């Protein structure tokens, strides 16, 4: 019964005021970066199609005319690279900032699924308090993800190039997704350890997390799979609903923007709920 309880407590905790504040911070950060990206891309596109009917074609989505011109006109390479560079830079900013914010996020979740102690410190202060150990936990996580994910992806690429078949294609992707999710979930438990115990050692946190994952392997893996499915379903719903919205008019674009952002919020919520359920499992498991 520990697994259903962990899921229920995780979902309950994810919609509590404290974690919602964390969600707000995470979304606000991403939205701000996305806004900067949007403005940059808009100005780039608008300047390219100013006073041209090709601009109207874009109401229906990317048009072949626009795409060919964009890719082949003199200077196209530098424009494309500038967009790519901005996207990568903003994604890196988000990655680093989200690590910095993770202490605040986890402390609010632990507060909900743990002792019920009220967190009186401001969110930012909580983030600052745990920034060091969270960074160290994240570095270890990136190492695990990079090495394991890299190896699995190489196997996948070799298999796909070798026409290993549809069964391999799906099995390999499933394995990659579950393994990487399990690593991320273990890292979550390590973060919970840091906040719940006050132990600032990343090594100790990872040791505890791995020990928990091994001791509670069936429940832990099932929870990883459950959370992965939830995340995929939320993402699929978000993309599907957004794709049904006609964005050929100004109001359609605004509606698409709003619905798209609701989908993004949903994805962040699914991630926080997953963290909360893993935290709950760790705490109820002792």
């Amino acid at each position, binding site marked *: 019964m520990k697994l259903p309880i962990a899921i229920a407590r995780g979902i309950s905790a994810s919609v509590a005021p404290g974690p919602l504040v964390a969600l*707000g*911070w995470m979304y606000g950060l*991403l*939205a701000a970066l*996305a806004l900067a*990206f*949007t*403005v940059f*891309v*808009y100005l780039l*596109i*608008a300047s390219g*199609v*100013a*006073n*041209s*009917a090709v*601009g*109207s*074609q*874009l*109401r229906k*989505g*990317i048009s*072949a*005319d*626009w*795409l*060919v*011109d964009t890719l*082949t006109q003199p200077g196209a390479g530098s424009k494309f690279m500038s967009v790519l560079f901005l996207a990568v830079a*903003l*994604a890196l900013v*988000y*990655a680093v900032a*989200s690590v910095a914010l993770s202490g605040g*996020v986890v402390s609010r979740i632990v507060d909900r699924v743990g002792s019920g102690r009220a967190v009186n410190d401001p969110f930012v202060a909580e983030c600052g308090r745990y920034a060091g150990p969270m960074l160290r936990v994240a570095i270890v*996580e990136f190492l695990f993800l990079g090495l394991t994910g890299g190896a699995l992806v190489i196997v996948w690429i070799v298999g796909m190039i070798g026409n290993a078949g549809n069964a391999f*294609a799906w099995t390999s992707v499933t394995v990659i997704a579950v393994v990487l999710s399990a690593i*991320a979930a273990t*890292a*979550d438990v390590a973060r919970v350890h840091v906040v719940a115990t006050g132990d600032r050692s990343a090594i100790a946190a990872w040791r505890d997390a791995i020990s928990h994952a091994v001791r509670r392997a069936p429940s832990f893996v099932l929870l990883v799979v459950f959370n992965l499915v939830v995340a995929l379903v939320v*993402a699929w719903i978000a993309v599907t609903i*957004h*794709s049904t919205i006609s*964005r050929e*008019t*100004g109001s*359609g*674009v605004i509606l*698409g*923007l*709003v619905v*798209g*952002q609701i*989908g*993004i*919020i949903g*994805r962040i919520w699914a*991630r926080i709920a997953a963290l909360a359920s893993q935290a709950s499992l760790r705490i109820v498991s002792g």
Partner: protein
Amino acid sequence: MTTRTSLIALLAAAVFLPVLTTAAQPRPGDAPAPAVQGPPVDRIDPRPLAPIAPSSDPKFRPKRGGETLSDRVVSYTMKATLDPAKGVKSVTGTERVTWRNPGDSPVSELQFHLYLNAFRDKNSTFMKESGGRLRRDDMPEDGWGQIDVTAMATADGEDLLPKLEYIQPDDGNAEDRTVARVPLSKPVMPGETIALDIAFVSKLPRIFARTGFAGNFFLVGQWYPKLGVYEPKGMRGRAEAGWNCHQFHANSEFYADFGVFDVELTVPQGFTVGATGALLGGRPSEDGGVTYHYRQADVHDFVWTADDNFVTGERTVSIEGMPDVKVIALVQAEHAATLERHLDATENSLRWFHANVGPYPYETITTVDPQDDGGGAGGMEYPTLITAGINTTSAGTLPADDDPLLEVVIFHEFGHQYWYGMVASNEFEEPWMDEGINSYTESLGMADLWPAKRAAWIAYGGVNLFRLPLDNPTLGPFSRFASTQFVVRRGPMIGTSWGYKGGQSYSFNAYQRPENALQTLGVLIGEEKMAEVVRAYFARWKFGHPTSQDFFDVASEVSGQNLQWYFDQAFRSDRLLDYGVQSVRTREEEEIAEVILERTGDAVFPIQALVTRDDGSTESLEWDGLSSQQIFRIAQLPEIRRVDVYPNRTPKLDAYATNNTWLSHSDRAGPARIATDAALFFEHLTLLLAGVVS
């Protein structure tokens, strides 16, 4: 926190709301373009043009009204037996081939294609050019194939086998054995016929390119010794008579004489067979198999397929003005759900070509669906038999109803019955003439027949996962890329199939660029005239071997104007075509507006731009297109709302579309949509890559 994120959303809305209000402007109607006589091309650019063969001597135009459709220079009577056993996979055969000297002078040697030797080892010209990889398939290590001529003698018994020698007319690659010559002790006099008896064993390659086997699926093409084409002086503009017999190349394999094929094929019990021509009958063979007898006249090749996994569909198509045609589909059992779709696509293609190009004169057309592992045999054309391929079109999954790829492939390959099959241009020397003209008619036919099938899917692991927000690239929405500097500046469109520079140059210059040039020709002379050109070209050159210049001549004749200036630029040069509206500015004090048109490329094209004003009135601006810029001073009022360089149809040869129009008000909703979609994609990807908390 919720308050803060809402503020960000509102801020985004505030940025975009004011810019999302301009309505899209309607385009003018699609009136036919006026026929405009163009300028001599050397007035603007004196650079030399790519050399091409001159027009064919009129006496080599196919004769009409005779007893046969073609000149029937050759005939093949063949018997072949398939051994599908593991480790064997070969065809053992004999043929009696006859050849009539069509020229005015004696011929003292014969030249043969032995194209299966392209798969003999890594040293063949084909393997060197392709690098062992073609159309996403790799040559398997254990998949080599070859053809061995085991006997060759004249009908009166002279053994020619010792005299057979391999030659390499294209590249001098001594390791290439795809062409052979045999000297004759007695020359063949003009009009005289020689008969040879040949025995051969063809070990089939494992399919990665066009021909061979995959499991028990066999697509047996280029499998027998086939004569090259002896071209008399004047044929295809040839200065001196001689054999035209090219090696097997990565991008070309077809050029042969018309004739009669009478073939008996023996296969084991349980195999379904499809082949060029009409099935005359079948009988048990002495070795316990089945022998099928096929015959087809007025074709220049013979191909066949066998598989123990086919399901078969047939229907008879009756169209006034041509014989009934039996449409046959041979589809893999696991793709049986697409059997009717194969038949429908083939029948619709047949009807379209009959209505728009000319009658289909044969009694059969067979569409073959190769086995999944034999995708390299898909998308191929042979006389009266074509291959499609679910595997080559939808990554292993059955195609969605709105996915056009199956229909595109079938329509395209059926089109080759006309452009390659009947109009038998030389694929080696002028590849645009079959693939390019075929791509042009494909674009017309697909728009006519399946306008709603436009989807492009991202497939993974045999499942269509995601429909792209774009028209399927196979339909040619991106074909204009072949008109941009990245393709055009690399050289002229016309060239040998193996002579293009760069990886995709052949594809661009054989398919998309000529399609663009022919569509542009339609803009220049009008669509009705263009349709007449296509019909007239087919009518004149079916069962013949035309050159590029022969096509150009037909176009000039039908249009009633000398279009050489256009063909010289579009087909024989690296000149870029691009015109645009540079700006529209007003001179308040003079109450005039200046519309400035510019030529940003170095190709010349007559322009008839259209000015549309706020009150709906229009004004045409004519320009010969010679200068780099042309300023038109017109009345300022009523306000100019729009200027179109190409008001009726945009020529696909025009490199850049963005400058083809000028609007008084920019449409900002389009860019806003793309920007917000891109940002949403960025957010999803960032969440995926960076995680949320970690």
